[in-house]
């Protein structure tokens, strides 16, 4: 399916779960937060949650800030 | 006797020895606190009155310019159910008792307003059936239709009762703890609701919670050790400033001056000490109005105007007359305001400064001070009965 991930078109080839997407991106699950279509997807729900084609996804982590 | 709440207890700052250099340093304190006040109230500071006055004047000018806010007291009733040992209006004392009827109240209000006043202070004694909350509320309502600022100096009440007065147009409450020393307080208040120290202590907070915009605090100098009471008073003000941070606070300095009806003040405060106290408060509470009433003499009031004091009352024979006392000798009172005796009264000791408005304003202008009648507009009140 095609998703918009962090503002860019992205083809997801995994099983449509968050952990699968993060693995494709090379992101560490413990160090990322994910929103889908503007809504936060809590990590406790990552096993059950499934993306839909065309979803807008933000994958966020902590960087330096004051 | 219950211990004082932590926010009020002045004990940690008492009984310290302050040197001349402590005082000199306190004079320039940028962030004054209890220690600053204690130093400025100390015996060592008595030698520093002139520099204290200089600093007090500079701070008064910075925060208030050259203005002196003027207001006038109106005694509504001389009925009182209380038992204060130091007051001639106590329930067991022989004195004439009157309460103005509403027609008389309106007459007084109109006369006072015609003189140019915009702030009025309505006074009663402790709650009585002749001057109860309903009576007071109606008087407030009548006053609020004519004056921008309506203050009351009456009995402590519940928050809901204060709220009803706010709705009637009241803007300000004045309530003196008399003394913050619980043992002295208990001795001085012989019976009735006023015996309850805590109920009185918490009343200004209830008034502010009940919507009143301003609260005036004070302690009756002479009842207990003035350093104790003035430190506790300062802490009371600071506590209210931090909790009711949108409220305006003022501080008054009522003083027992004479042997009023046989009562001898245990800790008399002379003019020099009173001046020291007022200068100390100006330095430690630079933006809080400090009030001096007509209980103090003309020379003292003239001297203190603008050097610490920036709010003063006027009370003359033409404002309140024999309506209250009915022409007979007025007993001494020791509340914040002097009772104005009627024209026929011989002993003038209650009102020490009975100059009328014109004369008083002329004195202020001669000292390059500017009398101000209004610093608050009634249009900000929620009640919509203003102006008539």
């Amino acid at each position, binding site marked *: 399916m095609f998703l918009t991930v962090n503002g860019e078109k992205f083809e997801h080839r995994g099983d449509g779960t968050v952990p699968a997407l993060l693995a494709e991106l090379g992101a560490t699950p*413990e160090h990322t937060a994910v929103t889908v279509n503007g809504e936060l997807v809590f990590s406790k729900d990552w096993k059950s949650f499934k993306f839909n084609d065309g979803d807008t996804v933000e994958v966020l982590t902590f960087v330096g800030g004051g | 006797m219950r211990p004082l709440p932590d926010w009020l207890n002045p004990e940690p700052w008492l009984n310290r020895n302050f040197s001349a250099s402590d005082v*000199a340093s306190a004079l320039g304190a940028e962030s004054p606190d209890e220690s600053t006040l204690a130093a400025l109230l100390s015996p060592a500071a008595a030698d520093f009155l002139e520099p204290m006055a200089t600093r007090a004047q500079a701070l008064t000018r910075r925060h208030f310019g050259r203005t002196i806010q003027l207001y006038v007291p109106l005694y509504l009733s001389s009925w009182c159910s209380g038992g204060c040992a130091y007051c001639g209006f106590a329930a067991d004392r022989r004195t004439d008792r009157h309460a103005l009827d509403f027609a008389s109240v309106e007459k007084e209000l109109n006369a006072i307003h015609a003189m140019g006043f915009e702030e009025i202070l309505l006074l009663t004694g402790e709650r009585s059936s002749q001057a109860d909350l309903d009576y007071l509320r109606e008087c407030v309502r009548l006053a609020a239709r004519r004056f921008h600022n309506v203050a009351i100096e009456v009995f402590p009440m519940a928050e809901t009762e204060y709220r009803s007065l706010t709705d009637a147009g009241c803007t300000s409450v004045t309530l003196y703890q008399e003394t913050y020393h619980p043992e002295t307080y208990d001795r001085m208040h012989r019976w009735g609701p006023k015996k309850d120290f805590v109920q009185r202590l918490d009343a200004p907070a209830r008034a502010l919670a009940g919507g009143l915009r301003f609260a005036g605090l004070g302690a009756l100098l002479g009842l207990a050790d003035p350093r104790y009471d003035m430190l506790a008073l300062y802490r009371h003000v600071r506590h209210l400033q931090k909790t009711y941070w949108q409220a305006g606070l003022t501080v008054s300095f009522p003083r027992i001056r004479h042997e009023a009806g046989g009562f001898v003040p245990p800790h008399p405060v002379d003019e020099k000490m009173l001046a020291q106290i007022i200068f100390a408060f100006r330095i430690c509470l630079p933006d809080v109005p400090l009030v001096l009433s007509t209980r103090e003499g003309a020379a003292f009031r003239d001297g203190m105007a603008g050097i610490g004091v920036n709010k003063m009352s006027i009370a003359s024979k033409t404002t309140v007359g024999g309506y209250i006392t009915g022409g007979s000798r007025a007993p001494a009172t020791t509340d914040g305001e002097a009772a104005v005796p009627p024209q026929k009264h011989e002993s003038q000791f209650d009102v020490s400064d009975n100059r009328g408005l014109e004369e008083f304003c002329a004195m202020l202008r001669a000292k390059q001070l500017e009398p101000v009648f209004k610093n608050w507009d009634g249009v900000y009140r929620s009640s919509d009965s203003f102006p008539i």
Partner: protein
Amino acid sequence: MKHETGNLKLGGHEFKSRLILGTGKFSDTETMIKAIEASGTELVTVALRRFNREKPSDDLCAPLAKLKNIRLMPNTSGAMNAKEAVRAAQLGRELSGSPFVKVEIHPNPHHLMPDAIETYLAAKELAADGFIVLPYIPADPVLAKKLEDVGCAAVMPLGAAIGSGGGLSTVDMIRLIIRDSNIPVIVDAGLRAPSEAARAMEMGCDAVLVNSAIAAARNPVDMARAFALGVETGYAARQAGLMPKSDVAVATSPLTSFLK
């Protein structure tokens, strides 16, 4: 709060160190980690950004997770309004597991001044939602009391614009905030020198938050240590009670002759 002794208390948590560190602008992660350690801080701010596959070293989570005794405080920088700040806070809490949030909303990218109104709205909502809210604000005494009223754990008035090194330019306003506050006052932004941190603590601030002054120093690790010393010094001086200033000037015509 004035004359508070002992640990810094924020929302029920206690901190020995009164220096809070920002993690931005460091030239590399290793320097940042060493500076954090040198500072002795127990609370650091972090920002939320998009994960970048191309620059995985931007990710601070892994290095920070290795530090002992450090709590993370996500900030809401990037948010332009209360709604975005609230969302950023929720993401931050989800990611860090920490209830701390620095509400930081600066819509103008030039001067980076905080938006008082949006900050208040966000702080109110987040405090009600159980966050430990530390709002970054203009040094406004009224705003500070309103934020206290809605449940913030502290207020963080700016000393000067972010990154400006302008020092304690808001000192008079901060003094007013300290005077009437019932919650800790933490100066955040604008500090340049450890002496300024010491001055803030001497004035009565409960803690300081420093980022640029350390990250942009020639030797950030040593500067972090210097700031730690500055904060400790200022705090100790305040507890010890500074010798008062002597400033007696007397009018030429006596004011008190009426008392004779």
